[in-house]
């Protein structure tokens, strides 16, 4: 349940292994490319993003390939984290206390496991929207292969692709905000892998306590 996470001899806690961090950034970097080129195709006011990334034609050529990289990373994440992202009965209490979480009244929140229910929502949101983006994206990749008789699926796929992308953008804004501005230390954990014991105890108490128990048992 805790992956490779462990208490480190220097008094810190390893939260994400190298493999976890590498896969996270494979997804992260490919997503940011997809986001920028996708937004360029979304609005004329943002088309300059495609120009900045090498031009509209190159952006259109590479966007689907980066999409495959992103989906590959999401599949790896699913294999790596899928089990830990399962909803537990305690999650309901966490969602009921969301108001306190938003107001930074964390002492009133039930303790979270390695991933809190908000992180689970992020994961499943990207997972399911990723499936929609993949399936609709495959149609948009080579629309000339779709016979005219079923041509109506092409604009429907364009519409669904945009809706799914917007949903991930909502999750992405919150993810970046939480990971950089709100939970100080979280960004370091996904770069260098480790967090302080106080951080682990504050944000993911159930996980931290289990690590402590496991290490004292050894």
């Amino acid at each position, binding site marked *: 349940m805790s992956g490779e996470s462990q208490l480190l001899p220097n008094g810190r806690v390893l939260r994400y292994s190298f493999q976890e961090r590498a896969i996270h950034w494979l997804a992260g970097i490919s997503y940011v490319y997809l986001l920028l080129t996708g937004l*360029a*195709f*979304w*609005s*004329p*006011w943002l*088309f300059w993003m*495609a120009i900045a990334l090498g*031009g*509209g*034609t190159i*952006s*259109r*050529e590479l966007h689907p390939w980066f999409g495959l990289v992103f989906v590959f990373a999401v599949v790896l994440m699913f294999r790596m984290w899928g089990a830990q992202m399962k909803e537990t009965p305690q999650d309901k209490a966490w969602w009921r206390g969301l108001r306190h979480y*938003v*107001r*930074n009244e*964390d002492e009133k929140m039930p*303790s979270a496991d390695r991933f809190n229910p908000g992180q689970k929502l992020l994961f499943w949101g990207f997972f399911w929207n990723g499936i929609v983006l993949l399936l609709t994206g495959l149609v*948009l990749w*080579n*629309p*000339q292969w779709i016979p*005219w008789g079923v*041509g*109506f699926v*092409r*604009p*429907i796929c*364009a*519409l669904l692709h*945009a*809706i799914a992308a*917007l949903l991930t*953008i*909502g999750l992405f*804004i*919150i993810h970046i*905000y939480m990971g950089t*501005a*709100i*939970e*100080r*230390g979280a960004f370091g954990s996904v770069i260098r892998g480790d967090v*302080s*014991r*106080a*951080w*682990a*105890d*504050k*944000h993911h*108490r159930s996980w*931290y*306590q289990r690590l*402590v*128990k496991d290490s*004292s048992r050894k």
Partner: protein
Amino acid sequence: MSQATMEIRRISGHAGAVPGAGMSRSYDVCKLIDTTTCIGCKACEVACLEWNGYSFSETSFNNSYQTMPETAWNYWNLIKFNEYEHPDHGLMLLMRKDQCMHCEDPGCLEACPADGAIVQYQNGIVDFQQDRCIGCGYCMSGCPFNIPKFSTEARKVFKCTLCSDRVSQGLEPACIKSCPTGCLHFGSKDDMRELADRRTKQLREHSGFGNAGVYDPPGVGGTHVIYVLHDATNPEIYGGLPKDPHIPWSVRLWKHPLKWLGNLAMIGGIAGVFVHYLRFGPKTVEDGAKPQGGTR
């Protein structure tokens, strides 16, 4: 195709005002195709290839008079052929010259995200600018007539230009020039409508085609290519001419309500987290704070 010297009315994927909009006194041009006098000689197909410089494509005669199943990226003008058993007139060989309809409300332009890749001139011609096309193929999704075609070599989309290069120089389109029966006409939209109405009246009153009519579909705001049909109530028999073409609802939904909703949500989301930060700030963990709970 070429940067024709004509006033521009609308351009695709463009932020801000359209240069030249409303500045021209040029009138709407129109091509009139009278399917009742077309003999299917395909001179227009040849003239189109000749003028635009494309080589002759491989033909596929599938027990039909038709050159190929549908237009191609380098074959913009195709006579659609259909054998039709008319209740009063018996077997009819229907010939319809298929090409871009130059919609007043073009679905290709509506769907296109590339700045200036599709332009609509003041005179109604809808033209693709391949140097600005990014090859996404959204125009193919927006078109109700299956006209824009993707070239796998060029990675761009092509279609009939209504000979914008010729029209801008005061010439008629190449197909019109080649027609030996006079079933193709070119002029102002008003003149062509008048001519078409006169011809359909003749067909109704003197030739026994009670359903004869003009195809100028209002679902796309009318078109700058119009047909005279023996049976306007049943355009599908003319090689699948859609009865009520319109820009797909999904394109409308995607380009209008969803775009505004999405933009507001994205701006609102960014503003929301910023205000949250000002109000509540980060979840700090004091340095050296002793972890609470747990077995130590």
